[in-house]
């Protein structure tokens, strides 16, 4: 039997039972679409998170007080708590020629009030370089003034949500407010957006780091953000930073320097694995659809037993019969897959048109893997019924009605 004849015969056998065929196709299509859509969701999430990181600024280093090393290394000999990371430490980092900007950060929560309106928000203490290091932009006014970071100026830059809550749409620039029991003057308003991992700057106030230290009565820094001179100098900058801090902390390596690359890499791996896991779970639905194909094919074989007997009487070989039924199963799987992939892309397109903030991204491997798996299941689950048909005894098959 010629392959084209096998194909047309199989196709005609399928079209002879349209309802059954459509239902099986639908199951296969939905399963395939689920795999593709879920992996698009995972990939979208991955890109989203990576984008957020990129927004933090490239060639960024984050210095965290205390040692959080996972790479082994000696535990401190004396069980002393790590030293605070101080403003002096932060300023000292600028001595490295690989360090371009430094933004020390203090974080706390405090009540911000204007007249009778008040709101408990995050207060972030930093310096003038913070806006560049974090790549933020202003909607109005100006950012914290440059100058001696030890000076506790009573000025504040507000996020959009906070400004809206306190000033009800009026311009906050030049207005006065209280943070805790201290008075501040609003000098700037951040642009919208600024939602990024872990901190929502839209509902926060940024004040000079010295003011924040006074407000929270804490000389220690929460983090120091460092912008390195370039991507290639990240590692040398990290080494310099460790050396400078060690020198200032009596030889103790008591800070952790996180490079953005390392963070990115970790998140990338976690989210990649998550995507695969989700796609894998969706692939189970493909297996279910495969069982459905098997079921349909088994029904088809038992309904067409006399036909198989006839084919054999007409001289069909086992492999002709096997080919016919396997082709039917494969056609179902292939058509279902194609429909499913089309469905998934349509779904992604619709979703992305609806929610521009979070974009689904179909990873290249997803449709390929879905197609492979579904055609694989089609073959696998089609094999049993097809073999049953091929091995039927012709005389008995003919006489079965």
């Amino acid at each position, binding site marked *: *039997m010629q392959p084209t004849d096998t194909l047309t015969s199989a196709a005609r056998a399928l079209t002879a039972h349209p309802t059954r065929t459509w239902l099986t196709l639908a199951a296969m299509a939905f399963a395939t679409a689920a795999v593709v859509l879920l992996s698009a969701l995972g990939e979208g999430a991955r890109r989203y998170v990576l984008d957020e990181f990129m927004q933090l600024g490239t060639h960024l280093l984050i210095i965290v007080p205390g040692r959080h090393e996972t790479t082994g290394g000696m535990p401190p000999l004396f069980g002393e708590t790590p030293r605070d990371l101080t403003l002096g430490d932060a300023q000292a980092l600028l001595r490295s020629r690989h360090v371009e900007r430094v933004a020390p950060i203090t974080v706390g929560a405090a009540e911000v009030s204007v007249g009778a309106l008040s709101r408990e928000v995050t207060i972030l203490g930093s310096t003038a370089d913070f806006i560049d290091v974090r790549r933020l932009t202003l909607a109005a006014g100006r950012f914290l003034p440059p100058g001696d970071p030890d000076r506790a100026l009573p000025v504040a830059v507000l996020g959009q949500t906070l400004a809206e809550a306190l000033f009800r749409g009026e311009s906050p620039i030049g207005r006065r407010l209280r943070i805790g029991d201290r008075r501040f003057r609003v000098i700037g308003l951040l642009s919208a957006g600024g939602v990024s991992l872990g901190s929502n700057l839209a509902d926060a106030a940024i004040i000079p780091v010295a003011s924040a230290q006074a407000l929270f009565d804490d000389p220690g820094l929460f983090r120091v953000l460092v912008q390195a001179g370039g991507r290639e100098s990240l590692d040398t900058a990290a080494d310099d930073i460790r050396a400078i801090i060690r020198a200032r902390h009596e030889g103790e390596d008591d800070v952790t320097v996180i490079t953005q690359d390392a963070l990115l890499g970790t998140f990338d791996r976690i989210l990649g694995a998550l995507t695969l896991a989700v796609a894998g779970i969706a692939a189970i639905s493909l297996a279910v659809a495969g069982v459905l194909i098997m079921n349909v094919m088994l029904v088809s074989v038992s309904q067409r037993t006399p036909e198989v007997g006839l084919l054999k009487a007409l*001289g069909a*070989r086992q492999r002709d019969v096997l080919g016919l039924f396997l082709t039917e199963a494969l056609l179902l799987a292939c058509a279902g897959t194609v429909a499913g992939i089309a469905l998934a892309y349509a779904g992604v397109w619709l979703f992305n048109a609806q929610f521009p903030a979070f974009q689904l991204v179909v990873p290249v491997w997803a449709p390929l893997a879905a197609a492979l798996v579904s055609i694989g299941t089609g073959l696998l689950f089609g094999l049993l019924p097809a073999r049953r048909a091929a091995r039927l005894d012709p*005389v008995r098959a003919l006489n079965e009605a």
Partner: protein
Amino acid sequence: MIELHGIERRFQVGDQVVHALRDLDLTLADGDYAAVMGPSGSGKSTLLNILGLLDRPDAGSYRLDGIETTRLPEERRARLRRERIGFVFQAFHLIPRLTAAENVELPLTLAGRPVRERRQQVAAALEAMGLTPRADHRPDQLSGGQRQRVAIARATVTRPGLLLADEPTGNLDRASGDDVIAALEALNAQGLTLVVVTHDQHLGERARRRIHMDDGAVLAD
């Protein structure tokens, strides 16, 4: 040329063994026209299935055109069926979703013949059965007699040497039965070996040879 020697066919039914054929000898020359007759359960269909290589005897020898068939692998037997044997069944066994022409084309398709050749041979086979105007009708749009003639066209489209018919008129009225028998006899007149199983005395008498069977053996020839 068909030579059967000492053919045995037994069926195990529960713990009982049914002897469908016992020590059967039979020789058919090319161009023979034989009617196989006998009571129900005498083994006529079993004999025909063995002749058609659809079934294997438990013992004995079956030579078809000099080829010992009993020990051939299934693939080779399928090929012999494809090339040398045509079947006509009481229940027609047409595929309902295919047209008359497509049903007739089936053996050629299975044999992997090229499309052009298939078209010509199908047209010729349908023409010979007087079915040209019905080529595009599906079986449910045809009468019983027409269906059986489609089945005959299908059985002969590969020009086999041997045509086996198991009660071909069993589902037909007298007139269409006669049409079918006439068609078969015309083919026999062209040199085809024809074996017809029938209960019909009237049909049996038209055959050159009458093989009477009882209880799995040939009573009279």
